[in-house]
């Protein structure tokens, strides 16, 4: 790299650090969690289809599905999917209201992010209690 008015050549400029150093504000957590919960829901679809297959297939398939659903892995998958549904739904409504031009003040943007994350926390506790 050559700077203006200089004949010297410099090594390529390093890029300043970004994700590794930036502080996570609540609305940023809410947005990233929205992408993460959406991804979790997509990944849950094949699992869900497999469970449906078990429910409608042979008695052996049914038993296999029930055993898996009652195992720690099955419960964990259900728990994560439940939280993801609740969170993605609530935060999706939050994004829609913002798109519609409601609750656009800085305070409301922050408060609504806190509310949806709190609802997800309550959902996590509730489904955890239900599944274990």
């Amino acid at each position, binding site marked *: 790299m050559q700077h203006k008015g200089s004949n010297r050549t410099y090594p390529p400029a390093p890029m300043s650090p*970004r994700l590794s150093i930036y502080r996570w504000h609540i609305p940023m957590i809410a947005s990233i969690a929205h992408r993460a919960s959406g991804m979790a829901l997509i990944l849950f679809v094949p699992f869900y289809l497999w469970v449906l297959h078990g429910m409608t297939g042979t008695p052996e398939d049914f038993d296999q599905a029930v055993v898996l659903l009652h195992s720690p892995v099955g419960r964990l998958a259900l728990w994560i999917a439940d939280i993801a549904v609740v969170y993605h739904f609530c935060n999706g409504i939050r994004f829609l209201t913002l798109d519609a031009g409601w609750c*656009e003040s800085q305070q409301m943007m922050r408060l609504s992010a806190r509310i949806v994350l709190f609802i997800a926390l309550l959902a996590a506790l509730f489904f955890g209690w239900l599944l274990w």
Partner: protein
Amino acid sequence: MTIRLSGVGIVSDMIHLQIYRYDPEKGGEPTMQSFEVPLTKPGMKLLDALNHIKWNLDGTLTYRRSCGEGVCGSDGMNINGVNGLACITPIAGLKQPIKIRPLPSMGVIRDLVVDMEHFFDQYRSIRPWLQSETPVPEHERLQTPEDRAEIDGSYECVLCGCCTTSCPSWWWNGDRFLGPAALLQADRWIRDSRDEMAGERLDQLEDAFKLYRCHQIMNCMECCPKDLNPTKAIDHIKRTLLARKS
């Protein structure tokens, strides 16, 4: 000397800082260098501490600054993980050691000085000036107080780059996503009743990347030193585009 600062009780008389250093003439990896600066006055700002280092401890420390009161937008930097202007950031209330790095996701020229070329190219791309086809009136172009109030919350931008360089969408798609600062200014001209090119401005912005890469992460609104809300401006552009279609 011990100075009592509101909110933090009695603090020691030395401020501990860790500052990102990079010297292109030496090359190598950037490092964090520690400094200690005396707390000289209540209400001391971070820029005062940087100036103290520059003038008394290490003259090679490089950063941009000019007005020293949050108007020129030169001293945008990452302070304890959040972007802000050093000149209007009080030392009191900052967790120590205060970690100071250049604005994120930018080419570092030296220490805290980053290459703003691409940022200003993006700003220029939205044509940030009044465009009008009607003949220039004899006197100024008038605007009602209500129309004037429409651009409150966007004309105040000082183009420091804090918002754009805080945006993860811009970090990853900065070559195509215009970023919060340029979009806030685009909205400012779309809203301006004297501008007659809103349609062309919207045409230019209607793009999956230029505008729609905003994912409402809201780091821009969290860090803006002028307390502006670029997320709101971006949402307004999206709504204006939608209203135009229906």
